[in-house]
């Protein structure tokens, strides 16, 4: 499991980050003494470092430069400083990514995943999803079942991908819309209904008209 070092002086954020990262299957390492951070990092050997800029003593910029000398782990700046200059400076000092507070939790997790994938070669997310008797190819935009396949539009593809990723669970309409917005598909409730109807039509074409169940008042379930 990748070890993630949290260098953050705000106690509440630190505690919540520890919980979040544990839930996501990482091993959080926390810095509580802000003296000799590079030394502590060298000892703990994290796979990734989350670094705040406003810290007691040395600021994050000089800390990043110092960390670069002792550890090879990628550094993600997580800061409330949002001027363009700060970002340029952070990246030129060897930062691998720059996230401004307040961030959305899924965004933070996605960026952590992306940086880890680059650095320790975590496998690329699979292109093919299998669930509920369906096989979905994300790059081809094709869903197939029992040897029959049908092409999906971008919206239908993302809806189905979200349902398949949570196969068996109920996914609420709001969560579906959230997931679509994450993929730059900015639709509203009505458009979701229209797309859902079309998607069901296409699933019927390949012989699975009832693959997606409606759970009244709760959402959809694959």
């Amino acid at each position: 499991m990748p070890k993630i070092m949290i260098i953050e002086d705000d106690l509440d954020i630190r505690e919540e980050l520890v919980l979040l990262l544990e839930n996501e299957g990482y091993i959080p390492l926390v810095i509580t003494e802000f003296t000799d951070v590079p030394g502590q990092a060298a000892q703990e050997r994290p796979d990734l470092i989350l670094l705040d800029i406003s810290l007691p003593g040395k600021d994050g910029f000089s800390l990043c430069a110092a960390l670069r000398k002792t550890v090879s782990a990628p550094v993600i700046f997580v800061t409330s400083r949002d001027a363009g200059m700060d970002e340029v400076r952070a990246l030129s000092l060897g930062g691998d990514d720059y996230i401004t507070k307040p961030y959305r939790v899924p965004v933070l997790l996605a960026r952590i995943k992306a940086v880890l994938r680059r650095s320790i070669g975590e496998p690329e997310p699979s292109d093919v999803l299998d669930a509920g008797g369906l096989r979905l190819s994300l790059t081809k935009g094709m869903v197939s079942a029992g040897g029959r396949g049908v092409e999906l539009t971008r919206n239908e593809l993302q809806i189905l991908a979200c349902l398949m990723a949570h196969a068996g669970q109920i996914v609420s309409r709001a969560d579906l819309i959230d997931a679509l917005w994450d993929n730059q598909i900015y639709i509203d409730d009505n458009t979701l209904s229209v797309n859902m109807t079309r998607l069901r039509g296409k699933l019927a074409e390949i012989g699975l008209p009832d693959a997606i169940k409606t759970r009244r008042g709760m959402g959809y379930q694959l």
Partner: protein
Amino acid sequence: MTLREFLSDRLLRIIIQLLCVTTAALFLWATGTQLGVLAILLAAFLPVFCAVHLSDFFLQRARLRELESILDSLDQKYLFTECTPPPKNLYERRVFDLTRRACRDMTGAVSDAKAAQREYREYVERWVHEIKAPITASRLICRDLDGETRRKLTAELARVEAHVERALFYARAENPEQDCLLRQVTLEKIVVQAIENHRFLLIQNGIRVETEGLDCPVYTDEKWAVFILGQLLQNAARYRGEAPVIAISASSLGKQVRLTVSDNGIGIPAHELPRVFERGFTGSNGRSRGGSTGMGLYLCKKLSGFLELELDIASGEGRGTTVALTFPAKENLTKL
């Protein structure tokens, strides 16, 4: 200063002098001086009088021109008395000293005011950065809550953030050159970020956003452009109509790029349209829907002026509003 103005200013003195000359001539004539002698005296003294006045006129005019050119060359006009050679004449010197003392007092007041404004700006920036820590913590805490409560609370946090953001940019707009960073960035990146920043508001209001043709580069400050676009999205969400849609598209105008944001909202009454960029103007829509600060578009205008963006707005009541942002061509940007 013209000769006419100069003479009219000295009219009383000249009249008194002429009266004295006339009285003296009459007196001399009455006591038996010959008219010929009088004529010689007058012919000798009148040119002297005239020469004195004329030389005064030319000296004063030259001095005034010198002072005017000094004032014109000054960037901070209130430093005028500090940069001017003192006059030689006693009375003028005294007046000049008084003016200089007054100006020094003002210079002090101006630099105090500037320092106070800078400190205030720094305080606002620090405060904004500090308030983001508890907002971040709250966001992280929210994720443990169940769906509906989480969504509602996150939406409220997003509102807090939008206000905080406006305060930050209000402070920044006072000295925009300090953190402006013009770079090449694609419109898509700006639009995706702005939508991401306001997604809670947009989703909550059931808004559909259509984007088209945003894959073109512009030269601008990314954060500021995201802020400006964010204000437009917030307005579109606040003044939405039935089945709200926001369409964001880009078109190229030679070397310039125009980003158009249109909504199908309630629109702005024609007579209020010219005033929407005024500071604190809320209009009838703002009053009826509430929550309007009258700051969003004002800040947009101010920041786009600095980024050399053209900001145009068109609207019809009941038909929606279209805002066009025209990004300058790279070579036309003067402040880099």
